């Protein structure tokens, strides 16, 4: 039984209805202004500064525990890590050897076509804060904000591939919407044949889908999806995911295609915020149809 202090029993609340209507109208006004107009950006940024201490207070014990765990790892674990990293570095360096030559070749080819798209982009690294946002949306909070030059709509990558884009910016933090959020869609193309389509989030962390491909489309399980650069938000050519499963129902006109994201959406702690050069939005030209022989 929850007991209440008797002294407050007679505490009258005058004008309850009046204050309720007042605050409700205020809240409704906020919703409308926030939804319809963009004037609240500064207010929200200010409020996010107030919320920052709470977020840091919640986040810091977890960061502290991680730090503690890192600092008491055994020598063996460190050695194992080192061996693994060295092996990875060898593979990466092997791949990088060809990168220089390929970039030069790409520049040469683009010069031929009078098109100067840059391959490299400017980026900064942000850390995901240990703070949970809305349980039913795929979003994370990152410790870089407007103070670091982050802007709404900026592309976010992790070491595996495309992670998401910036949905909202505070002074010191920003909110990133993951590619797997049900409200997120990203223009992609299949690396094998250049087929362009749109990958839509499902609300499940490890699944995207391609809802707009006809059953006859040339798409196979295991195909790599990369960003097409259309839409101008994401730089072209970054991996988005691999096709996990293609279900073709002859009764339907569209295929049911599941994609496994390339980025570690539920595990990544470090994210890259990319500055997209305006002319970098470029796609592969569609293959030319074979000339029809004339009679």
């Amino acid at each position, binding site marked *: 039984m*929850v007991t209440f202090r008797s002294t407050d029993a007679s505490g009258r609340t005058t004008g309850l209805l009046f204050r309720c209507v007042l605050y409700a109208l205020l809240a409704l006004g906020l919703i409308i202004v926030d939804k319809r107009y963009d004037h609240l950006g500064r207010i929200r940024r200010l409020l996010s500064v107030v919320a920052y201490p709470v977020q840091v207070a919640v986040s810091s014990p977890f960061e502290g525990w991680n730090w503690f765990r890192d600092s008491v790892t055994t020598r063996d674990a460190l050695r194992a890590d080192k061996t693994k990293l060295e092996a990875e570095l060898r593979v990466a360096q092997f791949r990088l050897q060809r990168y220089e030559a390929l970039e030069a070749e790409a520049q040469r080819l683009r010069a031929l076509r009078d098109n100067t798209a840059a391959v490299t982009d400017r980026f900064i690294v942000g850390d995901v804060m240990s703070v949970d946002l809305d349980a039913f949306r795929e979003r994370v909070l990152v410790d870089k904000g407007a103070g670091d030059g982050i802007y709404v709509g900026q592309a976010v990558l992790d070491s595996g591939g495309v992670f998401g884009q910036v949905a909202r910016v505070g002074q010191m933090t920003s909110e990133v919407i993951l590619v797997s959020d049900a409200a997120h869609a990203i223009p992609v193309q299949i690396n094998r044949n250049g087929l362009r389509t749109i990958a839509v989030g499902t609300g499940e962390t490890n699944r995207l889908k391609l809802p707009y491909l006809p059953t006859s489309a040339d798409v196979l399980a295991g195909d790599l999806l990369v960003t097409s650069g259309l839409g101008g938000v994401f730089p072209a050519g970054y991996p988005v995911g691999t096709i996990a499963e293609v279900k073709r129902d002859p009764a339907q006109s569209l295929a049911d295609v599941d994609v496994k994201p390339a980025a570690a959406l539920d595990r990544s702690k470090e994210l890259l915020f990319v500055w997209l050069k305006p002319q970098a939005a470029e796609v592969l030209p569609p293959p030319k149809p074979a000339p029809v022989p004339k009679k």
Partner: protein
Amino acid sequence: MMREGRIRRLPVALSSLVALALAVLPLPAVLDAFRPDFLVLVVFYWCIASPRAGGLSLAFFSGLALDVINGVVLGQHALALTLMGAWATHLRLRIRVFSVLSQCLTIFALLTGYQFVLFWVDGATGNPVTTFGRWLAPFIGALLWPLLGNILSKAHER
């Protein structure tokens, strides 16, 4: 007997801050959907136990804090919490003499109303969340009420 005029706001502020921190505490993804609305329960408690200590201002600004921290449209939680806080304040004299079961049921109704306003604003602003998971929070919140209410009334009396 204590004087009416003396209202201690420290427990109100402290309990609200702790509840706000609990609202963003990282949980495993499986448990995340089962997270009760701690701050909402705390606001309901103060609305029922001592409407003049916090009242609707507490409800409105707690809601605004939830909006900012959850990153949703500004005013959504504020609206829901204001409306349901006012209802809780209106019912407070009855709720105080209810049995535990009736109290839990009333809190369940209030929490469901709260979720409904959130659901409605989500839909009206064009990003609806239609999973059934969101209707779990009122159940868990109502089950948690006897425990949370007792802790808060201990804090209130000291």
